[in-house]
């Protein structure tokens, strides 16, 4: 078999209150579907999309909360090796915006220090029901040194841009960090065929 057919692989993790449209954003981007209701989400751990940026193939592995945000019970391990976080709220729901500081506390506790965080205000197709002003969200994002973007998963507004911008940012960071390569962990299933017994037989 050939080597992997990509130059970069990034893990992107979505968080935010239930019902703000996290799954819709992922499905719109990876499959071009809306609403995503048709296909089963049961059993889907993450979605994959490979994009090309300036001639480099970037594979994005996008993880959803699996509903654990509903009762504020996301596992810490969900955040662990994320390269980027998409913190989502619903511009028509003040409450989802007010919960952002709580989410930021979780990020600070469990996510990697170098994680790239982007704040996303979704559902701009429902602009007449807007409860959170753009300026307010921009100010908040700036204060927390996050990028900010408003999207509509329904109309596909800015969805592509969201993920492509993130990918660009991640590539930039990856190129910067290239020098500090941590040592690698052994992986399950990566088992060595040279067992102890084999060692004994080679003389």
């Amino acid at each position, binding site marked *: 078999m050939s080597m992997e057919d990509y130059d970069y692989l990034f893990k992107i993790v979505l968080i935010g209150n239930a019902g703000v449209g996290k799954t819709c954003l992922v499905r719109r981007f990876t499959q071009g579907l809306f609403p995503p209701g048709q*296909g089963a989400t049961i059993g889907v751990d993450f979605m994959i999309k490979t994009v090309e940026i300036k001639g480099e193939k970037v594979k994005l592995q996008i993880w959803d909360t699996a509903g654990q945000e509903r009762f504020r019970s996301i596992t810490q391990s969900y955040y662990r090796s994320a390269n980027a976080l998409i913190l989502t709220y619903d511009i028509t729901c003040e409450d989802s915006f007010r919960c952002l500081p709580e989410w930021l506390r979780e990020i600070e506790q469990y996510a990697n220090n170098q994680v790239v965080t982007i704040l996303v205000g979704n559902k701009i197709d429902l602009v007449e029901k807007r409860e959170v002003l753009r300026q307010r969200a921009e100010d908040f994002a700036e204060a927390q040194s996050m990028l900010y973007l408003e999207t509509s998963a329904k109309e596909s507004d800015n969805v592509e841009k969201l993920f492509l911008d993130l990918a660009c940012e991640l590539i930039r960071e990856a190129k910067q960090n290239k020098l500090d390569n941590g040592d690698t962990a052994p992986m*399950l*299933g990566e088992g060595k065929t040279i067992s102890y017994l084999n060692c004994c037989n080679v003389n």
Partner: protein
Amino acid sequence: MAAEDLPSEFDVVILGTGLAESVVAAACSRVGQRVLHLDRRSYYAANWASFTFNALLTWIQEQQEGPQPEQGKDWSSLLNDGEELIHLSNPDLDSITNIQVLSYASEEDEEVPDTAKEETSANSQLEAESTGSREEESAEAEEESAEAEATNTKGEEPEVDQSHPGASSGPSEPTRKKISYAQLLKEGRRFNIDLVSKLLFSRGSLVDLLIRSNVSRYTEFKNVTRILTYRHGNLQQVPCSRADVFASRQLSVVEKRKLMRFLTSCIEETEMDQAYSSQPYSKYLQDQQLGENLQHFLLHSIAMVTEDTPTEAGLASTRHFLRSLGRYGNSPFLFPVYGLGEIPQCFCRMSAVFGGIYCLRHSVSCLIVDKDANRCKAVIDSRGQRISCSHFVVEDGYLGSRSSVTTPTRLLSRAILITDSSVLPSDSEQQVSMVTIPPGEVCQSAVKMVELCSSTMTCMPGTYLVHLTCQSVGSAFEDLSQLVTKMFQTPESQEPGGRPSVLWSLYFNMADGSVPGVEGQGLPSNVHVCSGPEGSLDHEHSIKQAELIFQRILPDEEFCPPAPNPEDIIYDGESPTPSAEEDSVKEAGQQEESGGDLKEAGQQEESGGDLNPQLDQ
């Protein structure tokens, strides 16, 4: 928030997020059962949890304060004819006892040049404020019990000039700067401190299950890099692989040959001499003319059994060790990056992906039992909602007095240390060591010690996290502090010398989960009890228990079949796109070009990808 109500009908309700409960949750959701998984606590994994340093201090405080009084609400109005209630209790009631904290780190940074004094003083005040006095008090309340040095009373203005207990090690020592308590707090999130200390045998049932179920995609592992043993007051490396044996400087050529011959014959499973069927393994080893040195290694570090373990069991343990050796590295053990607390959470994630509903800070007050059928029909949650279920799985702690009345309490003694260097320094600072301390060496019982380095993401750089575990004879402090004083540098240590200094330590006793549970003791037949962690190094007990419970609930279903690879899933009404096809035929591999972060993601993928455990031998 989350005032949302829970659905009122499930197939399986599970209370407690320890390892066995979480595996049952994943297994049931995986085959389509509707699972509700609750935990009264605000964190996952119950007594299997790992905490940041600050969260551990909060946990200690909670344990010391004792549980909040339960509101004895009367739910009998929710009962129908022929039903009765079984009340549950708080799981934290008596599983943790004898907590003792000793802090030896200085409050302030030491070895600060005079010119910088003003600045540090300002810093330390800031730190004292920002870290919040709540947690510090809890730690310090215990400090009184021991004559820990360098514990100036907090709450008073920290005075830099006074608090230089380590002034002797002046600024002329450029190599190491002592880590202060303030730094531990500041870097607290870099710690992931496990309440239990275990390892994964590379060919143990947990590793098998992780691979088989694809739950392995949620976590990463490090190899334990060396096996050490403490003998006659010295630490020695135990040679276990062929390379080790030949590189060993402690063994004579004759010993090397004997050891290799023994290990090879052991793994070939040659018929055991029947003469030894009723003899202890130690006698068997003695008769193999291996010499005292090798017998010690084989009995205590490889088989990890006691003097009177029967030969057959001893040989089985030795084989298990040898089979696990070399699968992933030069030792039979793996340790999960970010700590053991990750493992139950990974199974919870798998359950959630397959529709399991998760709710922390939410408990079950009582069970509703059908008197005639003696079956649990429903539960009443802590908000008074009646939730029907066909099966109820529960961590034994919630059964409270029910379990402790009938079973003698056996305890584990635990000590957790944060130290400033490794017990056995070597070329690499990033060693993960498993240390066996045979019974009688210092302590009455055999002590298992695991020393973790910062690359396991369980402690801050420049520190090591040391876990000690043994069967209790007395309190954890009585059982283990003498050993700590001998192997490490504390103010109580007699002779000085190049041993690691203890910066902070915690002692506590935990109920031993291997004690036979309350199964069947008047409980309805569809209530399944999971025990908490026990003292063994491996995870066999909990995994077996989870599998048994699953089989009782769903006798005809497969236990944790592999979750589909996300790259292979084809969604309804969608023809596979070219890119999806490409993805599915790809073979996972390491990206050369990628940086550190990418690598992690790359491995994540690898673990979940096209791995076939069968390929491996």
